[in-house]
């Protein structure tokens, strides 16, 4: 019974193997049974594990020696502590609901079994990522989820935009992962091991050491932390590698909910939190994390305001929330970041699934051509409303407690960037409810703006989709109650629970200040909702007029600050130019093909000369033989 936790990752792996081997021929449209039952099994075991962890049973054991190469010894091992337990609940809990929802959403797709196979494989890698007890298992999971993300974004690969988006996600993440891999290598070179526990134990002894890179003395810990963070920037879609996430919306909506909201993109936050002993020792790295997080958060939030694709709005919202989590980690409030990760998993997955339910009814993503769906999809409407309220930070809901925890930590932390970051995140606290409610109002209120034909087909989604929505709505409502702060009479249980792993941030502030900050952010959040209501419910002509009068700003933000264009011209074009003009025309055509074709050609040419000796006329052979004998005799007699 002690190794029961092994079921958590290996049940989904078994589902993957079964579905990929027998899905096409035997299982076909029953593929969801295999995947759903296994992940629910994983969830049940995760709950058991959580209870064990609450009772103080931390697991850290090696199962199998993976690689032995002189001093480089890596094993496959699992570490299950408080942080992992929380992640397990998010991954398997939210994952189960999304799997069930998928059965309805993907019904009748010709790649049905493939979809569930990839989804299960993804969950396996994600669980390896959170459960590993060393950096290489983390890395295995890290790359594995990236691969599955690629498979699932490009799931409808017949569509050019989908396969392009898959490639973009994979290649963009590769930039970050390169840094991450270097970070892991550097950790091994410094500590001689990759296991978390010895690394984190010894990390204090390395503080202040420097390493010489190209003549520059660089602080070792800072370098490791920044390299690891580079991986997180890629995976969690922070500036400057955020560009892949909005495009990733080409995948099926439940995939966006699972991979690009609740789990994979949070891997970066998880990793930073996991490595908190390393980050804590480097002020530069912490500042970088906080500032990149906060800037990304505001940046993405402003873009979300003007988007018209329902899924892209949520995608930018995800980037924004991830930035918030990083900001929290950057000031040392890891527990607040993980708390937000946990509540975000619920309300963001819910937003995506509700959006999926809407798309299921109207068959397109453009909110300008929706409206009035409240009548036709009451359950979707209510659940999405709860999600938006939760995301917006309306008091009492899950998102409120975690967001408030972050904002308070930013304000009260002694971090040099704390106040700046706090201002940025407070601004985000306005934008989040604003764009969430803009989306809600444009989608569900007013009159339907699509065609009559479309209106005729509007319907509520089947129960297999609405039940997960309702369960997630319960999560979006109540998941935050485990972290009600002490000043509101709660126990801040989650912060205490995570304290053994993540430590406790030093916060300097009075209760009065904490109430003040809470009041401020709540007011800002509510005003965001009110302004959205004014603009998109009451005076619906105003947004257009505002867009016209501020057309410059509007155009820049609407075009996502032209980041995609910038990358297109500075990276994609030169890369393609090098690939086409140099690699293909010179390296490939001249060097590689030159060698490949040249060797046989020169052999052929030489043989062409040599073959003339073989005339086939017996006398010629005889003459050569005679001449040879004469020659040898002459040689001997000389």
């Amino acid at each position: 019974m002690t190794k029961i936790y092994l079921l958590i990752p290996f049940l989904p792996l078994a589902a993957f193997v079964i579905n990929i081997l027998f899905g096409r021929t035997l299982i076909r449209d029953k593929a969801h049974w295999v995947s759903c039952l296994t992940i629910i099994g994983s969830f049940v075991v995760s709950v058991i594990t959580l209870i064990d962890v609450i009772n103080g049973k931390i697991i850290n054991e090696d199962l199998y020696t993976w690689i032995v190469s002189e001093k480089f010894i890596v094993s496959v091992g699992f570490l299950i502590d408080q942080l992992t337990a929380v992640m397990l609940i998010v991954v398997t809990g939210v994952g189960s609901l999304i799997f069930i929802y998928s059965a309805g959403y993907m019904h009748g797709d010709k790649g049905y079994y493939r979809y569930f196979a990839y989804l299960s494989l993804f969950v396996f890698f994600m669980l390896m990522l959170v459960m590993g007890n060393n950096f290489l298992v983390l890395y295995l999971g890290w790359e594995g989820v990236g691969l599955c993300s690629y498979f699932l974004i490009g799931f409808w690969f017949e569509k050019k935009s989908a396969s392009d988006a898959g490639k973009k996600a994979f290649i963009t993440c590769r930039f970050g992962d390169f840094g991450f891999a270097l970070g892991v290598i550097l950790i091994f070179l410094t500590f001689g091991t990759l296991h978390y526990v010895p690394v984190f134990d010894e990390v204090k002894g390395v503080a202040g050491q420097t390493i010489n890179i190209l003549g520059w003395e660089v602080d070792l810990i800072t370098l490791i932390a920044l390299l690891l963070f580079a991986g997180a920037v890629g995976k969690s879609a922070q500036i400057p590698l955020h560009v892949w996430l909005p495009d990733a919306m080409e995948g099926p909506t439940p995939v966006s909910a699972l991979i690009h909201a609740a789990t994979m993109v949070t891997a970066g936050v998880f990793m930073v939190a996991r490595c908190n002993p390393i980050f804590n020792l480097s002020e530069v790295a912490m500042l970088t994390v906080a500032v990149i997080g906060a800037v990304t958060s505001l940046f993405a939030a402003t873009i979300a305001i003007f988007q018209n694709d329902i899924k892209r709005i949520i995608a930018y919202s995800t980037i924004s929330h991830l930035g918030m989590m990083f900001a929290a980690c950057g000031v040392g409030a890891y527990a607040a970041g993980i708390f937000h990760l946990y509540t975000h998993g619920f309300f963001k997955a819910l937003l995506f699934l509700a959006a999926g339910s809407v798309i299921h009814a109207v068959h397109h993503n453009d909110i300008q051509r929706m409206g009035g769906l409240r009548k036709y999809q009451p359950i979707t409407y209510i659940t999405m409303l709860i999600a938006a309220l939760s995301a917006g930070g309306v008091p009492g809901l899950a998102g409120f407690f975690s967001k408030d925890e972050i904002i308070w930590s930013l304000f009260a932390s002694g971090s040099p960037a704390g106040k700046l970051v706090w201002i940025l995140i407070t601004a985000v606290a306005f934008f989040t409810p604003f764009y969430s409610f803009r989306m809600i109002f444009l989608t569900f209120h007013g009159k339907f703006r699509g065609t009559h034909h479309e209106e005729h087909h509007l319907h509520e989604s089947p129960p297999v989709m609405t039940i997960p929505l309702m369960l997630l709505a319960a999560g979006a409502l109540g998941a935050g109650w485990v972290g009600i702060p002490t000043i509101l009479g709660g126990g801040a249980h989650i912060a205490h629970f995570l304290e053994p792993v993540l430590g406790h941030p030093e916060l300097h502030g009075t209760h009065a200040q904490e109430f003040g900050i809470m009041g401020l952010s709540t007011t800002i959040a509510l005003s965001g909702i009110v302004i959205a209501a004014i603009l998109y419910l009451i005076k619906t002509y105003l947004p257009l007029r505002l867009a016209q009068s501020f057309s410059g700003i509007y155009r820049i933000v609407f075009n996502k600050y032209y980041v995609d264009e910038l990358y297109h011209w500075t990276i994609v074009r030169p890369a393609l130019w090098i690939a086409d003009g140099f690699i293909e025309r010179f390296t490939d055509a001249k060097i590689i093909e030159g060698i490949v074709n040249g060797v046989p050609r020169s052999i052929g040419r030489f043989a062409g000369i040599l073959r003339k000796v073989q005339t086939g006329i017996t006398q010629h052979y005889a003459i050569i033989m005679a001449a040879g004998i004469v020659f040898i005799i002459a040689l001997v007699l000389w």
Partner: protein
Amino acid sequence: MVPLNWYILLGTVVFTIGVTGFLMRRNVIIMLISIELMLNGVNINLVSLSHYLQDLRGQILTFFVISVAAAEAAIGLAIIIALFRNKATAHVDEVQEMKG
């Protein structure tokens, strides 16, 4: 008493005729006969030198050469018959299967 030189000269002439015939003629049977001539040229030398040196080993070797030549003639003729059956010719320059 015929001097040794004459015998050696005879052997050389016979061998040379054999070599020339082998290289010049294109009829396979003639080429086979030429080989026999070469062998017999050698045989004449062997026998005459064996007598001159009063050593029987040369004459013993000659018996071996004659028996080998008999076997060679038998096999050679068999090959020629097979060739003729397949190609309907006994001229080597018309058979160029080995041309590279």
